[in-house]
């Protein structure tokens, strides 16, 4: 069902990047006070890596508070996604930065 899921997401214009192969690392840039791509789809066990290209520190913080990654200016922050779900997230310091992570089983 993975391909139909991806195609459906593309058709709905929801996908920032395609689902990665399991156990891989997906990079997200923090740049211009925004997450890029804004939405990514990964699998349980994949690693997300946020690279902060801005001049100020950011966080990647799940709105449900299940995870929180601090990323200093010019640095990277990583997290292994351990549970499936749809996670809307923000930067706690700049809540106008919003994104979404979809973690597939």
């Amino acid at each position, binding site marked *: 069902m993975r391909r139909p899921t991806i195609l459906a997401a593309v058709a709905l214009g929801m996908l920032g990047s395609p689902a990665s192969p399991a156990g891989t690392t997906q990079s997200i840039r923090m740049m*211009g*006070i925004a997450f890029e791509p804004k939405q990514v789809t990964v699998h349980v066990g994949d690693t997300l890596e946020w690279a902060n290209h801005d*001049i*100020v*520190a950011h966080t990647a913080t799940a709105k449900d508070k299940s995870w929180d990654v601090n990323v200093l*200016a010019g640095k990277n922050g990583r997290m292994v996604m351990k549970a499936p779900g749809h996670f809307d997230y923000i930067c706690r310091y700049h809540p*106008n930065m919003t994104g979404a992570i979809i973690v597939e089983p």
Partner: protein
Amino acid sequence: MSKLRLTLLGACLGLAPYAAMAQGAAKLTDPQIAHIAHTAGQIDIQAAELALKQSKNKEVRAFADDMVRDHKAVNEKALALVKKLNVKPEDNDTSRSLMQQAEAKRKELSALKGAAFDKAYAQNEVAYHQQVNGALQGTLIPNASNGELKDLLSTGLKIFQGHQQHAEHLVHALPARTGALAH
């Protein structure tokens, strides 16, 4: 910059009767714009330092820490840029008025304590960022001539819009003002 635009900037920054009128119809230069932006940042750093001195509220203190860190980072970039461009930030009527207004607000906040201070500080952070963001968006960014200065101001605007949202969340999270005065 027209006299009308200067008046609007004054209004945006909450600067009634507005001493910057003395600048008349003179266009703000990039060194003056850089100085206004830098001054606006310094004012918020000083407000945050006051909050760190007076508040025991964890969220207020965390917010104040964020303000110190971010505004210092932006101001450091601004200073590095004016150095690179070999220009000297120029004091001007607008930046002087900003400082005067900030001093009055500082006195007002210093007279408060506890939850009353926390709420007033957070509310002022909303209003202040709203005013500065309006000035950046409507006047400072459009009037900046140098591309790098314009870019830095635009980045600053996005950062400060985030601060405004953050401050709005803080205001809602804090209990209503009690009006308690310091002894």
